[in-house]
């Protein structure tokens, strides 16, 4: 009886552990099965580099959306990464205990607030501000970048902070003992040593920006056109799916799944590189 239970518990845990594998396989299969036919029909090149998206007329080009996703993500990364890394240095090195006790739950809260709330705030504050001070309608790459930058902060901060704190104390003590200032130690010893962890955090943060849907629907304006400046409206891959899935049918729906494939591939590339970097560090 006892032996039986022993064996059974191991088997049950193993079967439960297969759930993530089956989930990922199912997701991949269903997204691809539903999207591939359209890509095959239109042609991969035409789909990715096509400039015109008019499902009613059978035109399925998503290049403007790829540009949209890339530009908003780039903007968010440019704003979010330096701020995020500074915050993680602050947390790991400068913050007094009291500040840490405020900062850490605050960052947690930041991560927990629904993205629609950020989108709303952006719509009410950032968009009008841009429109008044910089011109245009306000719904723009810039607005999206600012809000996404705030949203990816928790990911970057927490992972970077952990990798800074995980460094052996001897690194810092050794450098300080050699007469380096605290800042020189951080810049020349600690940051380089924690590089791979920080890069992994940044990549995951970028992944979050690429995949975010609600915020970009709310503040980007969603026009399908190549942007000429950061004040122009764009549509991202996620937006395309989110906006049109509600009424799409037939080939149109297939095209949205095909958009999903492109998004999925981008995300998986980011995922795998983040995992690769983290694993290399462990070794």
């Amino acid at each position: 009886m006892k032996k039986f239970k022993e064996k059974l518990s191991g088997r049950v845990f193993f079967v439960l552990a297969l759930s993530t594998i089956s989930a990922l396989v199912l997701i991949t299969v269903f997204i691809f099965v539903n999207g591939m036919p359209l890509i095959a029909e239109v042609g991969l090149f035409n789909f990715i580099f096509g400039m015109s998206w008019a499902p009613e007329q059978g035109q399925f080009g998503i290049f403007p959306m790829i540009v949209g996703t890339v530009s908003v993500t780039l903007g968010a990364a440019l704003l979010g990464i330096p701020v995020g890394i500074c915050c993680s240095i602050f947390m790991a090195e400068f913050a007094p205990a009291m500040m840490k006790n405020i900062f850490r739950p605050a960052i947690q809260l930041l991560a927990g607030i629904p993205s629609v709330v950020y989108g709303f705030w952006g719509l009410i504050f950032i968009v009008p501000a841009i429109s008044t001070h910089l011109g245009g309608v306000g719904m723009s790459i810039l607005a999206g970048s600012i809000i996404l930058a705030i949203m990816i902060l928790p990911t970057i901060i927490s992972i970077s902070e952990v990798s800074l704190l995980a460094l052996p104390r001897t690194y810092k003590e050794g450098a300080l003992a050699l007469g380096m200032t605290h800042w020189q130690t951080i810049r020349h010893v600690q940051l380089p040593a924690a590089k791979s962890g920080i890069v992994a955090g940044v990549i995951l943060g970028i992944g979050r920006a690429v995949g975010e849907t609600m915020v970009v629907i709310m503040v980007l304006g969603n026009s399908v056109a190549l942007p000429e400046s950061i004040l122009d409206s764009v549509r991202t891959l996620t937006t395309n799916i989110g906006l049109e899935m509600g009424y799409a049918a037939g080939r149109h729906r297939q095209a949205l799944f095909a958009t999903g494939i492109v998004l999925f591939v981008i995300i998986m590339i980011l995922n795998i590189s983040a995992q690769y970097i983290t694993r290399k560090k462990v070794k």
Partner: protein
Amino acid sequence: MRITARNAEKTAKILIWTIALMVIAVLIFIIIFILYRGLPVINWNFLTEIPRRSGREGGIASPIIGTLSVTALAVLIAMPFGVGTAFYLAEYTKGGIITRIIRFCTESLAGIPSIIYGLFGFIFFLDVLGLGWSILSGGLTVAIMILPTLIRTAEESIRSVPKSYREVSFSLGGTKWQTIRKAVVPSAIRGIANGIILSVGRCVAETAALIMTAGYELIMPRSVFDSSRSLAVHFYTLVMDGISERNAYGTAAVLIILVFFINVVANMLINRFVAKGR
């Protein structure tokens, strides 16, 4: 030379402090702003009446129920899988190809955006399984989304149980299963609970995947097979369709308060967990 180093030190310190404080300020500003406009809207009727005229009037009772039921369902479904996987990874395997694959899949799932989950849930639960827009479809979809969080936090807390507890239990004639149940689980339970709370937070905040799987229905759901709009989806609709800014603020305030409470509970669990671990 020395003076430059000292100046650099000073400048860097000031810069980093400024940035950190600015981040905090922005966060506080967002929260205060929403609460300032939203709290006055919240009263007993707002919480207990179902929305009328698409949400222009009435309250948010049915979206609250929608959010709660999707969350409860998702956590109930995901918990055995998540915690089971964590135990498998932490206690039953010493590495090997299958473990590596499981880890890869878990981390990949964590990075997949919710819109992809939405697409999958839409085609699989609605179309293939024929569940239609429903609390069940939404719950199942979100259950997959929260798996990585559950696995990570549970595995971490299982691993943080001192090795000596296991040795003692084995040395007293415990089998592996007995050791896990009596020596490991009691010490890991807070960490596991913390993971569950964090997952609840993720369910409450989820929007994109739920629009596509749980639908927009505003009447009170009678079973898990009914469609129901979650709070976040309701809020989104109120804003985007320009239905009622007043009620949008109210709903957002409720969401923020919910998330805040979830965080407080999670932190309480973590702190006591850490204190006990010492």
